[in-house]
């Protein structure tokens, strides 16, 4: 069994009886875990679960009382062409984060983790990537998302969760969020990508103690054809089975970094 198959086998442990994937083995299926696993494994059963889990408004997520998570953009990258995808894309195109960095009522907005909240780095990256890959005619929303990513970029390049400055103090970038944001910006915003790429290239080893950070970095470095890509991939292979209690998201990223799933996320 080659390394990527070992990772895929570890990931498959989170597959639930209903075809979806939970956040960890034996957990109930959830949209985000299922969507990323579906991309990683090209898993038709996971896609079927997603089709059954679509909300009436076309979105995907977890309803937690008065809070609803929004995993629709990521899920769009896992869905096949068809009405369900179009309904989901309609939702992505028509929703946005509350004004985040431009002041009250002012763009850019990006996309939020939960419906109605501010736009942040990772969900905005998924929004941009989903529209670039599946509905490239949605140029105004793509442009807004890119503007939001520019506004949320850290000084010197890269991204953290989305706060480049807090109370007059510059905040540092993180590897994991930078890697995902780069998947959204590469090929469409060269200066933003270049500064983020420099940060990722320089710092990915600093955070490789975190498997999710390592796996996302390996995926982005591979798409960027970075000279460190093979080294990062080798570390993913080495640590996947040696790191206890990895969640579905981390393992799915590892599978994507090593396998064919990366094609769905490569907009370069």
């Amino acid at each position, binding site marked *: 069994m080659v390394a990527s198959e070992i990772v895929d086998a570890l990931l498959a442990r989170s597959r639930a009886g209903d075809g979806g994937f939970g956040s*960890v083995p034996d957990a109930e299926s959830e949209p985000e875990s299922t969507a990323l696993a579906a991309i990683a494994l090209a898993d038709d059963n996971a896609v079927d679960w997603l089709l059954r889990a679509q909300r009436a408004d076309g979105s995907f997520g977890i309803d937690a009382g*008065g809070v609803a998570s929004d995993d629709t953009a990521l899920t769009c990258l896992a869905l096949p062409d068809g009405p369900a995808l179009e309904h989901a894309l309609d939702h992505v195109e028509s929703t946005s984060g509350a004004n985040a960095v431009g002041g009250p009522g002012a763009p850019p907005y990006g996309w939020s*983790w939960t419906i*109605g909240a501010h736009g942040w780095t990772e969900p905005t990256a998924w929004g941009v990537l989903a529209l670039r890959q599946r509905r490239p005619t949605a140029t105004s929303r793509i442009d807004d998302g890119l503007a939001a990513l520019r506004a949320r970029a850290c000084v010197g390049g890269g991204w953290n969760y989305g706060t480049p400055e807090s*109370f007059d103090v510059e905040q540092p970038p*993180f590897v994991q969020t930078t890697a995902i944001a780069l998947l959204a910006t590469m090929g469409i915003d060269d200066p933003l990508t270049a500064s983020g790429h420099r940060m990722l290239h320089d710092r990915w080893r600093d955070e490789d*103690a975190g*498997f999710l950070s390592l796996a996302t970095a390996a995926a982005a470095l591979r798409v960027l054809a970075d000279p460190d890509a093979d080294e990062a991939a080798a570390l993913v292979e080495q640590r996947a089975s040696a790191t206890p*209690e990895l969640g579905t998201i981390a393992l799915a990223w590892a599978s994507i970094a090593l396998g064919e799933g990366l094609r769905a996320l490569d907009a370069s």
Partner: protein
Amino acid sequence: MNADRHRISRRTFVRGVGAAAAVGAATAVGLKLRGSEPQPWDPAAFPPPDESHVAVLRASSYDGDLVGVVLDGLRAIGADVAGARVLLKPNLVEYDRGSAINTDPRLVHAAVTAMRSMGAASVAVGEAPGHRRDTRFVVEASGLADTLQDAKAEFVDLNISPAAPVPLHSRYTAMGALWLPTAITEADVVVSMPKMKTHHWAGITLSLKNCFGCLPGRVYGWPKNALHWQGIERSILDIAGAVRPSLAIVDGIVAMEGNGPIDGTPKDVGLVIIGDDPVAVDATTSHIMGFDPDEITYLKEAGRFLGTSDLSRIQVRGEDPDAVVTPFAPAPGFDGLGATAVGGQ
């Protein structure tokens, strides 16, 4: 408390405070309650409690006998964890080398050891960092992973562990229910272990605010911005009312003042504060920080239903809080907080 963290008897109910007066006070400090609902909690879920106990203990460094300190504190407040499944919830919002952001792993290790020596059936440590999706990075980088390996204690990543919706019995937000990890809901004893810090949105962050880190980011995001949209103070009240920590152990050995909770200045205080009522622990700690607990909006409100914020009603063991007051520089936007502190010089 013998394996029932939902038992309320440890808290002291301030019977003398009328609801209308309390609503007026809360409104005056900015927490506007729903006009039609002056008491936004279910009285059956928050019955009148017994006494609240807080122990204030000196601990000059992380290299001393912290197990002894924690044991002294737990015994002083009469804690009973025999046979209980204990979950320790430190504060690990993110990692920055050399900062005082996080609960120190050595205190967590000491708490693990102390709980076991008092007969806990199991002790695990759980956290859902609010800024970093990669929990393992924070746990490894902060040194907590090595510490827990040494202690042979399990770490639960609350960001990804199984979770389920739990109905709220308070209504400060419009959430109605919270998605809570089963590691929290199935623990007999949840111990909130915050860092003693100022906070630029809430004034201070202690054992109540630390409960934010029980909620999984995969539902609420990184950061958990949905909770901010509900109102941070309101969210603190609803979340703490749902998590209901049985015990609190505050890391005040090296604390953080000024622009907390991330970019503040480390401050040597040399204290560990332990109690069986998180509201009482936070009120006592706020007083030690030089801030009048009545000026901390959510803390005063928590004193109406969740515990005791009235310092005169808290049974204090160990050091006299008045004798160890160490005025903190307030967080930005809370400049007037220290000026009205009870006992704050």
